[in-house]
Each structure stands twice: as structure tokens, then as C-alpha cells.
């Protein structure tokens, strides 16, 4: 089966091409079903191909397709190991559910077929990224997901906000890509190849500690761009302008995990540099805290989830930064389940509220939308880290590993714990504001449960959110054994064992419970109390509500000076210096041509004469130099 693994990429690619040409013609809902079928088949193929790993029998295999850029050591070659298998299953599995959901969600959109073209293209790109066997193919997928992100965020491009958000995502991603590219160049100059097998086999031989740190930090820049970490996270909240399934698929479940995946993939390099690893973990921890504090004060349901995503990605960075790659990937997986569920649930709510996203205008929806309500409740508990739901296991493992490492990591552990509390708080707040309390609907809104195509994926994802954590419990480390072959030769950090494990677990559960109770006390209790409390912390609350004005600060310090520089370059430098040079060359050529023009008499006999004289001259020269 492994040699057919290219089908995993090829099927969605085929779907893309097909829908590109015929998407509009076959229309709704068949375009959606075709798209779902292609990615669903990818999932099935991935699942069959992953069977040997589940049995613990097989080892990593490469599938050679064709020569691409031999000089870079970059062939069209796929790597099929547990890590890519996990990613393929997550991407295609969650992707399939979101595709199916989109059929209902995008109902009535006039560019229905086009939407699924992009969705399939995204799946193609992401699967290329995770299946790559060298950095060149990885980079190809990396750039393509950026492109898809742009296309899908600004899918409703007639809305200025959506168009701007798409551009922002693209540009911020480019900044990260820049670091990523420099990292690739550094890798290439060091190793002379971009192939995983040669770079990652034993990087210590060629890679000094300094270079390893540099490469690691540069990869971190790229990963931060894609995975929305400090300081490049600003695009993700804006990306909520796209259709909600896009937010679910790209900005929660799959694309943003590319950064985490890359760090995990290049684990042997990070193993060489403590500095780089600590940097990854630190960035992750602070991002987690920052995003969580912002999430607390948001009114827009999708923005809460967006900042929550950033925060959770921060957790994953803490995990992979602490050398707990399995824990990081584990959280990536569980997060994919419950965050996709949250977004889809939010989408369902938005759908029901006639595109209303402000939580202050919701409330009391539980009675109207039973399935959405229940599944959202499960997701909220899962992300809050309540056992035995999925989030508890993975988050706990990350926190445990950080604590075990000690030293500087104690600080990170503390931040993580605080974040866990905040997470529980804002998620509960969101749930209460949306589903409980009195209805605060705008007039003319009649909430209703969503159609079957939307609720079925919700239920499947809810089940996964409940059960997903059980693949890697301290009692049975299933995922760890599964992923082990992918991290051969890398020393993995582990969560503590014995009593400490239970204490830490209890502490984090406690943090979650406290968060939930605080939120419940504040938002289910009398309104005056809430008003009073918020009044006391008005200023910091205002700052959090406005995301600490980071966007404005970026605008002031980077965008506006950049614009000024561009204007100077365009109208002063370019017009004066560059055009001057060009025009000077042009004038020079003109003068020269004017001087030489009389040679061109237009008389063909003249030319013939010169030609003949030239030939005769050559013959004479050859003869006189003894050539003949």
C-alpha cells in the first residue's frame, strides 16, 4: 500500500482540477460531495497504509516518484513514517468532516463550486507538506497552504474586511516564510542537500552548535508565522473574516499546525541546540498566556476561538520546545478535534443566528439547538482540561513534561497553568454567553438547529473529543509507541511518573475547575456584580478587549514607516536614480544608433557586397595563415 501513498495527494489534486473546470457546472451540492469524496478517499488510503504502524511492525519508507531538482537533492519523494501518517490522518480525517459540514454551511453561496476547489487545493497542499521527504517539497506545500489561506480568507472578497484580512495573512506569512527560506539556505549550504534522509539522519556530524541554534531559530520564525505565535500571530484573528469552515479547517485544525509539525520534523536539529528549544518553548508559553488574556475579553464568538487557537498552539510549542514531541503532536491531534468542533459549532450558531457573531446578542440557544449545544459543551470541557476528555490528557502531558525539566521550565509550567485557568474561564464564558441565560437576540432572528450535513460532523468530532485522549494516557502510552520510529535518535522528554504525576494532574484539573467556576459565578450570577467587577478592572479589560493594541502598534512602527519608505523609493529614488540610469542608457543607445544608422542603406546589393567581401576576406586570411 505504501507505494500508492501518492494517491493521498493526487486524489484531492484531481478534485481541484476537476472542480476548477466543472465546479460551476455541476453546482450544488454535488461539487461538495465530490470534494468530500476525494479527501475522504485520501483518509481511507492513509488509514490502510498506516495499519503496519498501528501494529508496530513497519519502519519509515520513502516513495520515489520522479526527479525534480537533483542539484538540491530534492526529488519528488514522499516520506511515510508515523509522524506523517498521524498528520495525514488528522488532516484528511478532520478535513473530510469539515468538507461535509461545508456542504450544509455554504448552502446557497453563489461560488459554491469554487469554494470546494480551494478546499481541495488546500488539502492537496497540506498533504504535500506533511508527506514531503525533503525541505523543497515541504516548502512547496508550505507556500501552497499560505496561498490557499489567502484565497479562502478572502473568499468573500467583496467585503473589504475579508480582502484586507486575506492580504494581511499572506503578508505576515511571508515574513515567516522569509525566515524559513533562510533556514533552508543555511541547511543547504551546510549539508549540500535538502533531503531529510541526509539532513536528519545524523545532523550533529556537520552541524555545529551555533549553526544549529541559527537554523532552529530561523525555523522558529517560519513556524511562528504559520502557527501564529508571537510576534506574528496578528493575522489569525483577522482570518476569521473567512467562512467558518475555513476557520475550522485552516486556522484551527490543520494549517496552523504546520509550524508545530516542522519543529517536530526537525527534532534532530533542535536536539543539538538547547537555546533554540528553550526559545521555542518560551515563545509558546508567552503566546499562550497573551492570547488567553485577550480571549477573555472578546465579544465576537469567532474571535474568542481564534485567540484560543493561538493560545493552544502556544501549548504545542511549549511541548515541542521541551523536547516532548510526542506530547506536542498529541495535543496537536486532540486540539484538532475539539477546536474543529468548536469552530463548527460556532459556525452552526452563527448560521442559526443569521450571521450574527456578537455573543452579547445571543444567549439561551441551548433549548433551540440541542445537538450544537451538547457538542459545544463537550468541546468546552475538553479544552478546559476536564478528565477524561481529550484536552486533559494532552495538556497535562505537556505541563507535566515542562515541570519535569525543571529550571527555567518551572516558569513556563506556571504560565501554562495560569493559561489553563484562563482557558477554562473564557471558554465557559463563551458557552454561557451563547447558550445559557436569557435570549438577547436581535429582532427577526429565529434560531433553529442546523441541517444533517452540519450536525453529523459535529457529533463525530464530539465523539473524537471525548475519546481522542485515550490513545495516550499515562496508563497506556499508545501514541508514544506509535510515533517512536519517527523520533529515532532523538531523546524524548517524558512526563513525571508516580505520585508527582497525580499531584500535577490534580493541580491542573483544579485550575480548570476554578476557571469554570469563576466564569459561572460571574456570568450566571446577578448582572450588577459583574458590572461592578468589570468596572473595577475597566482599564486592563479595555486593553484586553482591544488585544493590547498590538495591531495599531505594528501599524505605527512598521507599516507606516514602510509605506513612507516605499513612497520614497517609488517616487524619489526610482524616478530619479533608477529611471535616470535607464534613460541614460537609452539615450546613449539612441545616439549610437543615430551614428550607425547610415550603415543600414536598405539596398540589398550593398549588403550582398559586404557579405561577399567578408567571405573573400576570410578565405584570403585562411590561405595566408596556412589554414587550407
Amino acid at each position: 500500500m505504501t507505494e500508492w501513498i501518492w494517491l493521498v495527494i493526487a486524489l484531492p489534486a484531481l478534485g481541484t482540477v476537476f472542480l476548477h473546470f466543472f465546479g460551476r457546472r455541476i453546482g450544488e451540492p454535488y461539487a461538495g460531495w465530490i470534494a468530500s469524496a476525494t479527501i475522504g478517499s485520501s483518509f481511507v488510503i492513509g488509514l490502510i497504509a498506516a495499519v503496519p504502524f498501528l501494529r508496530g511492525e513497519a519502519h519509515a519508507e520513502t516513495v520515489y516518484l520522479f526527479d525534480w531538482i537533483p542539484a538540491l537533492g530534492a526529488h519528488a519523494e514522499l516520506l511515510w513514517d508515523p509522524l506523517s501518517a498521524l498528520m495525514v490522518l488528522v488532516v484528511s480525517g478532520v478535513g473530510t468532516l469539515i468538507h461535509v459540514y461545508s456542504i450544509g454551511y455554504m448552502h446557497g453561496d453563489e461560488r459554491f463550486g469554487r469554494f470546494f476547489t480551494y478546499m481541495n487545493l488546500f488539502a492537496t497542499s497540506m498533504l504535500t507538506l506533511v508527506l514531503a521527504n525533503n525541505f523543497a517539497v515541504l516548502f512547496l506545500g508550505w507556500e501552497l497552504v499560505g496561498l490557499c489561506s489567502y484565497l479562502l480568507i478572502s473568499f468573500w472578497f467583496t467585503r473589504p474586511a475579508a480582502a484586507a484580512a486575506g492580504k494581511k495573512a499572506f503578508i505576515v506569512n511571508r515574513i515567516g516564510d522569509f525566515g524559513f527560506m533562510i533556514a533552508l539556505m543555511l541547511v543547504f549550504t551546510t549539508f549540500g542537500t535538502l533531503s531529510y534522509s541526509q539532513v536528519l539522519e545524523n545532523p550533529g556530524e556537520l552541524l555545529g552548535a551555533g549553526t544549529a541554534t541559527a537554523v532552529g531559530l530561523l525555523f522558529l520564525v517560519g513556524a511562528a508565522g504559520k502557527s501564529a505565535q508571537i510576534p506574528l500571530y496578528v493575522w489569525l484573528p483577522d482570518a476569521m473574516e473567512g467562512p467558518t469552515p475555513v476557520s475550522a479547517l485552516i486556522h484551527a485544525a490543520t494549517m496552523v499546525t504546520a509550524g508545530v509539525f516542522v519543529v517536530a520534523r526537525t527534532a534532530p536539529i533542535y536536539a543539538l541546540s538547547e537555546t533554540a528549544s528553550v526559545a521555542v518553548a518560551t515563545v509558546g508559553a508567552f503566546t499562550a498566556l497573551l492570547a488567553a488574556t485577550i480571549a477573555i475579553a472578546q465579544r465576537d464568538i469567532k474571535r474568542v476561538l481564534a485567540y484560543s487557537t493561538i493560545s493552544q498552539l502556544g501549548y504545542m510549542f511549549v511541548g515541542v520546545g521541551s523536547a516532548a514531541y510526542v506530547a506536542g503532536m498529541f495535543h496537536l491531534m486532540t486540539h484538532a478535534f475539539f477546536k474543529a468542533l468548536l469552530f463548527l459549532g460556532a459556525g452552526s450558531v452563527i448560521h442559526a443566528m443569521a450571521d450574527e457573531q456578537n455573543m452579547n446578542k445571543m444567549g439561551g440557544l441551548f433549548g433551540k439547538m440541542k445537538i450544537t449545544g451538547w457538542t459545544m459543551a463537550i468541546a468546552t470541557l475538553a479544552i478546559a482540561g476536564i478528565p477524561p476528555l481529550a484536552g486533559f490528557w494532552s495538556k497535562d502531558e505537556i505541563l507535566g513534561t515542562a515541570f519535569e525539566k525543571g529550571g527555567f521550565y518551572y516558569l513556563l509550567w506556571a504560565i501554562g497553568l495560569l493559561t489553563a485557568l484562563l482557558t477554562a474561564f473564557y471558554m465557559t464564558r463563551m458557552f454561557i454567553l451563547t447558550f445559557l441565560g436569557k435570549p438577547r437576540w436581535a429582532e427577526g432572528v429565529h434560531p433553529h438547529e442546523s441541517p444533517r450535513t452540519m450536525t453529523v460532523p459535529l457529533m463525530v468530532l464530539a465523539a473524537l473529543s471525548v475519546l481522542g485522549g485515550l490513545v495516550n494516557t499515562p496508563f497506556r502510552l499508545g501514541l508514544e509507541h506509535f510515533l517512536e520510529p519517527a523520533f529515532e535518535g532523538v531523546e524524548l522528554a517524558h512526563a513525571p511518573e508516580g505520585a508527582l504525576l497525580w499531584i500535577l494532574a490534580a493541580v491542573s484539573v483544579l485550575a480548570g475547575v476554578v476557571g469554570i467556576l469563576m466564569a459561572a459565578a460571574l456570568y450566571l450570577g446577578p448582572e450588577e456584580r459583574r458590572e461592578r467587577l468589570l468596572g473595577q478592572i475597566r482599564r486592563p479589560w479595555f486593553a484586553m478587549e482591544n488585544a493590547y493594541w498590538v495591531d495599531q502598534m505594528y501599524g505605527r512602527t512598521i507599516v507606516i514607516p514602510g509605506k513612507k519608505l516605499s513612497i520614497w523609493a517609488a517616487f524619489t529614488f526610482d524616478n530619479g536614480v533608477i529611471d535616470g540610469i535607464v534613460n541614460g542608457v537609452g539615450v546613449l543607445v539612441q545616439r549610437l544608433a543615430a551614428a550607425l544608422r547610415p550603415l543600414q542603406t536598405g539596398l540589398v546589393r550593398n549588403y550582398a557586397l559586404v557579405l561577399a567581401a567578408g567571405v573573400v576576406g576570410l578565405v584570403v586570411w585562411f590561405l595566408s595563415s596556412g589554414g587550407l
Partner: protein
Amino acid sequence: MTVTVDWYLILAAVLFVIGAAGLLVRRNAIVMFMSIELMLNAVNLTFVSVGRELRDLTGQFAVFFVLVVAAAEVVVGLAIIVSIFRTRATASVDELSEMKG
């Protein structure tokens, strides 16, 4: 006195020079064309003569192909001349100098 290959070569050279001179001196496109034919034939003569001297048929194949190419060239060339004449009412190449600098 026997005729050696040199004689034919010198004759061919003279014919070639006559053709080249015609090409350079005459203005009538048709006559220029004929001068080119003359040059081609001069070369053909060298092919046959040297081929005979070297006991090699290849020279005659060269002549054969030159003949075919010359025929093709004449067909197209004369068609062009007729086209030019239809637009310009002249066959003098000196008057076709729009492309001069």
C-alpha cells in the same frame, strides 16, 4: 593534353565570379535570381568534377539536392517577386529600401 579536374574547377570559379558580379551589379530582381542560379550551377560543376576525380558518387547526390533546393527556392522567390510587383509595380531591388536606417 588531357582535361584534368583543375580545368573544371577554374571554369566553375570563373562562372561563380560572373554570377556573383551579376548579383552585385544588376538591379532587376529576376536577373539577380538568375545570377544566383548561375552561382549554384558553378558549384554543382565542382561537385561533379571532384566527385569524378575522387571516384565518389557523393558529389552527384550533392548536385541532386542542390537542384531540388534551387527549384524550391525559385518557386518561392519568384512568387515573392510577383507579389512585390503587384504592390510596387517594380522589380528593381534598389527601390525596396524602406528598411534603411
